[in-house]
Structure formats: C-alpha cells, structure tokens
C-alpha cells in the first residue's frame, strides 16, 4: 500500500458517509401523504397473520386514496420490548408513527404521558362507532372522558386441553374442573400416567410479561373474590390479601411439583409462541391456561396450520378458587388502534382506521386474528360465527369476564406481579415472601392509593 492510501480511503469514506447520511435523513422523515403504522411482528418468522392482514388493508387504502401511501413498521420483538420501542418512538415527533397498535392495558399509562391524541372529533362523524359494544367503547376512554382509540376485537381466557392425552391418562374428555384443586389433580394424574408430556402450562414471570400476569396470575386472582387487585369503591390498590398469596401459591405448587414446563422454558419471553406453534400442535402439552386467540395460528392462513386442532383440543372454563359463585372466571383485554399525539398526519391516520374498520375488514380481521367480536354487525356475521369451533365457547365466557383496572400505573403494577410470579416459580421466594415484596413495591408505585386487606 502506498503511504498516502489510508488518507485517501478516509477521505473517500467521509464523502461516502456524508452523501448517504443526507439520503438517510430524508428517507426517515415523514411525508404528509404517508401513514406510518407501528405494530408487533411475531417473534416466529413464519407467523405473519397481522402482517398479511395489514398488507391487504394497505392495498385497499392506497387504491381508495390515490397518491396516499401506507408504510408498515413491523417491530419484531417480544411484548415488553415492543411496548418499550413504541413508547420510545412516540416520544419524539421525528419518530412518532401515525398509528400504533397497543394493548389496552397500556393505554391509560400512555395517555397520561401525553403520547396519544383524542379522537372524539372523528368518532362523532363516524357511523360505524354505533356498532361497537358499550364495553368496547370504554376500552380506550380515559379518566378525562375522551376516547383515544378504536378496539379491533377483544378476547377471553380459559383452559385448552388435549383430549388425546386426557384419554391416555384416564381423564374425562368433557372435563370441567370445579376448583383449582381439580386442575392440579388432573395435572398430577397426567404427570404420573403420561410421562414425557408437560401436564400444565400457566404463564409466569417477567419474561412473558403481561401475558403471564393476565393469562396466568389474574385468571387465578379474580377467582378468589371480588375486587382482588383494585378496590373500585375506595379507588385503592389492594395489598396483603389472602387471594394474592393463594394465587402465588398455585403457581408455586405447579413449578415445585414439576407439573409445569421446565422453569427456564416457562420464563422465556417467547414461551407463548412456543406453546402456540409447538407444544400444543405437537401434543407436548396437556392443559394450557390461555387465550381465545390460540386458534389463529392453526387456521390454513396461520403460521402453523393444524386442521385437527378442533378435534384434538377441548376447551373449558377456568374455575374459581374453590368453586365459589359464579363458578367460572375469565379475563378480557384487547388491542386498539391509536393516533400518537406527535403524529403529523392525524387526519390521514384516522382515514386508515376507518379503512381497517370497514365492516368487511373488521370481519376479516376478527376471523383471521381469532378475535372475539366487539361490533354488533361483526358478531352477527355468518363468516364470524362459522370461523372456528372455539368462537362460540369463548364468546360465551364474556359473562364471566373481568377487565384489568384501567389506570395509568397498571403497567408498573403488572411488572411487580410478574416479578412476584418469577420469584415463586424459581423458588427464590415463598408465596408469603413474594407477596410481601409486592406489597412494598405497590407502596412505591401507588403511594397512598393502597388499602390493606390482610
């Protein structure tokens, strides 16, 4: 190499970099004709249900609005990382998408942070809004009385179980447990009679995040009594309750008796994908406390087509702790489309919401995404009713369902619950100790808004 070569190289690189940098900054800037939508892409590369659906709506939209473009921003991450990323994006007008897809549990927190724009002025002129069920309309209604998003479906939670494994274990295939003890008994029987399978999956720990808290913990907790997490009358968070300790005790029993998955698998952030695309379809798991949407991957359009699922799997409701009234329990959530406050294309973003929620698209998504309908016209559509054998069962759970406290601090409380679950899963703490740690965390998070029900 000639002695001057490095310098020339450096100079050339500078020029190259300068050129490409300006090119980049113009590329990521927003254009008034483009709607940017941020959504979560599954961590399994084969699972593209949402991607395919949005791709189709994007085509509709661009056709209906000549000159306008839709830019999809898929964020491939587990749930926690996804929330962090969209919050980071919404903080700056430079990176704020025009439309975000958010879990309702986050919405109040993000509204309080000023990330989202109210959409009441659009809703007032939108005839389809009347089709939404009252609970759905309040899903994204904040404490200030304004509405910040349009839900595209809801969900319920129950128990999925593998009837073939149940037969082998000598358990009834029309199983309906009446209490937590009956679930544990069935799991113990399976562990003994059908070795090599995972008897029971309950989501747990920090990694799976809100999935663990909602599908796992709250399905237990809300079966222990009324207002077990947040006391609506006094508007205070509940500390020191027996139900809380008992729920942790259930999780602790599952993992200390090895009725659950390997602890390291259970704590993996992507365990949900694994349950859906591997453990259930491949007959590795007997009982799964999980959501109504599980079937979306098993449809011919899903990431793991599995036509036999409707005969192999049974569904049953989650019982209350000791079978106390009303006997069954379920939790509901759902996701919504919201417009970030820092979006520069709010009008166009609203148009995109309308496109996503034409009756045709709403039915399509409810079916493909295995959602429980939140619109009257969708719920009455024959396409929805025939979509999968699970739909009527999970729709029936709506009468037993609970919603999470819609308060800004909920995400932090959820994190604290995840940590308590993780501690009893690994055996680092006993249920009493973990509940105590939770109570302390609660005081830090909610301050005075805590009531002791010990």
């Amino acid at each position, binding site marked *: 190499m000639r002695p001057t070569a490095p310098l020339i190289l450096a100079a050339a690189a500078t020029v190259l970099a300068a050129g490409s940098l300006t090119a980049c900054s113009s590329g990521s800037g927003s254009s008034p004709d483009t709607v940017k939508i941020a959504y979560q892409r599954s961590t399994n590369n084969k699972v593209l249900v949402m991607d395919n659906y949005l791709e189709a709506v994007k085509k509709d939209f661009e056709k209906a609005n000549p000159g306008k473009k839709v830019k999809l921003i898929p964020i491939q991450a587990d749930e926690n990382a996804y929330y962090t990323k969209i919050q980071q994006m919404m903080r700056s007008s430079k990176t704020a998408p025009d439309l975000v897809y958010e879990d309702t549990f986050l919405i109040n927190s993000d509204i309080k942070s000023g990330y989202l724009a109210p959409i009441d002025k659009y809703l007032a002129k939108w005839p389809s809004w009347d089709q939404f069920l009252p609970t759905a309309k309040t899903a994204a209604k904040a404490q200030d009385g304004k509405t910040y998003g349009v839900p595209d479906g809801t969900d319920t939670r129950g128990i999925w179980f593998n009837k073939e494994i149940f037969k082998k274990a000598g358990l009834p295939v029309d199983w309906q447990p009446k209490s937590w003890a009956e679930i544990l008994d069935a799991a113990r029987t399976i562990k003994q009679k059908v070795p090599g399978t995972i008897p029971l999956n309950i989501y747990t720990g920090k990694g799976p995040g809100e999935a663990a808290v909602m599908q796992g913990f709250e399905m237990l907790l809300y079966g222990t009594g009324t207002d077990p997490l947040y006391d609506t009358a006094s508007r205070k968070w509940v500390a020191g309750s027996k139900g809380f300790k008992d729920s942790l005790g259930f999780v602790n029993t599952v993992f200390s008796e090895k009725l659950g998955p390997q602890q390291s698998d259970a704590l993996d952030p992507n365990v949900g994908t694994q349950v859906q695309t591997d453990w259930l379809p491949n007959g590795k798991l007997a009982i799964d406390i999980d959501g109504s949407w599980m079937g979306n991957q098993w449809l011919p359009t899903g990431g793991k087509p599995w036509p036999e699922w409707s005969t192999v799997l049974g569904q049953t409701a989650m019982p209350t702790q000791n079978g106390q009234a009303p006997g069954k329990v379920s939790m509901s959530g759902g996701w919504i489309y919201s417009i970030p406050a820092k979006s520069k294309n709010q009008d166009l973003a609203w148009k995109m919401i309308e496109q996503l929620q034409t009756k045709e698209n709403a039915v399509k998504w409810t079916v493909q995404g295995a959602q429980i309908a939140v619109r009257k016209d969708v719920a009455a559509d024959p396409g929805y009713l025939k979509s999968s054998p699970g739909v009527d069962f999970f729709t029936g759970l709506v009468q037993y369902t609970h919603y999470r406290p819609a308060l*800004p601090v909920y995400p932090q409380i959820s994190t604290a619950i995840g940590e308590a679950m993780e501690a009893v*899963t690994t055996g680092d703490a006993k249920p009493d100790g973990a509940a105590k740690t939770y109570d302390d965390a609660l005081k830090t998070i909610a301050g005075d808004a805590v009531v002791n029900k010990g």
Partner: protein
Amino acid sequence: MSTLRRGGRLGWLPLAPAVVLLLVFLAGPIAYCVYIAFTNMQLTGSSSTDFVGFANFRRAFADPVFRNAVWLTLVFTVISSLIGQNSLGLLLATLMRRASKPVRSLTGAFVIAAWVLPEIVAAFLLYAFFRREGTLNAILDWLHLPSQNWLYTLPIVAVSFANVWRGTAFSMLIYSAALAEIPQDITEAAEMDGASGLRRFWHITLPMIRRSIATNLMLNTLQTLSVFGLIWAMTRGGPGNRSETLPVFMYDQAFNKSLIGYGTAVALLLLLISSLFSVVYLRLLKTEV
C-alpha cells in the same frame, strides 16, 4: 524531542472538531445524566418531570434488587476480570513464550478470534455452549460428570465465563508485550542459579511486569463494569434477578419499568464507581511515566 514549540492561537484550531464532539456527545450526556438522576422522569404513566432530590438514590440503597445487582456486579467482575481474564491471560502469555511456534500461532488465533467477534455473536455462541442441550453438557455427559442447565442454575457464572472467553485476548496481548520486554539475561541468570520455574516466575517475572498487571487489571475491570449486550442477549438478567448486573438493572428500570429517573440515578452511580477506577489507573500511569 527538542524542537517542540508553541503553535500560536491558530495552531490549536485542529483540536476544535474533537473538542466540540466530546463536549456535545460526551460531556453533554454526563451533565444531563446528573440532572435526570434527580428527577422522576418516566417513559410512560406520567407527563411531567419533577425534581425529587436524592429520592432515587435513597430508593436504590433501600432496594434489595439494587443491592443484589451490586453484589452480582462484584461477582461478575471478580470472576471474569480479576480471576478469569487476568490470570488466564497471564498464563497464556507465559505458556506461549515457551511453546512451539505452530501451537503458539494456533492458540493465539483462537483466543484472538473470540475477542474480535462482535459482542452479540459471542453471546450467541456462548448461549449455545451453556444451554441444556449444549456442548458443555455434551462434554460433561461424555466424562460421566453431572450436567445441568447452566443458564438457569448458575447464570452469573455462565455469563462470567462468557466474558472470560471473550475478553482474555486483551490481557494476553498486554502480558505478551510485557514479557517480551524482560531482558533475556535476567531470566537466564536465574536459571543458571538453579531457581525453579515457579520461583523464577514469582520472584523475577511478576515483579518485572507488575505495572502491566496493574494497568491490565484496571482496564479489564472498567471494561467488565460496562458489559451489557453479552448478558442481555444471553439471559436478560434472569432467571429472577440472578444475572442482573448494574448495567442490566439500569436498563431494566429505565425502559422495562419506565422509570428513567431511577435508572439514570443507577447509571450515575456506575459512572462514579468507574471514575474512581479511572483515577486510580491514571495514578498508576503517572508513576510509570
């Protein structure tokens, strides 16, 4: 050099770009860090940012998870920096001076390759190595030794070893350079006197390279204190908090728990600890110059 002179005002101009960059992108964030550490800034759940005094620091010292992170950081640093990289690097450098050339080159190539690989690739390789179904357990099975799920049962040890694997080359290079500088006649003289290998090493070699040892220890420790990607990719600090060192704790608080103020207070503490090490390191260099 005898011809050094003053450059005049204009002569110092070339320093400007570097100074501007350092002020804007390094001094700026550090100052901002000090500010945020005393506020309750959040990623979500609050729109206002208030000054809260020392509340974040009080919270940290009362927080068992923080104390756990301090303890794990200590364990991580001692295992991977003081014991692992440092001793293994010295051992490799010493052995390499006596080994035959092909063996020397081969070993050097592997050790340095581990160092040159990007952080996340290293994390991926060691993750595979320590997994339940991974190579380490395969070897243990073959030797009829008990195997276990390392990333689950002993995650802090697994990530420490990963850091040793990745970082030893640096120590090896420093010690090789230092050993090469020991005059040959000194070791030969000792050999003539009949001193055994170990005694020679202890009484002659070590004292001669003590400055390199100090330098290496400082630099290793500082690098180890800031390891994030390796741990984050291998275990994310889990299970529980069993491999959550301070940088991971900081990230978790700031972004997963949305407590940017609290996370930054922890970052400031980390910065202070590192500054202490840096000052000690500079002192060492001073005595050497």
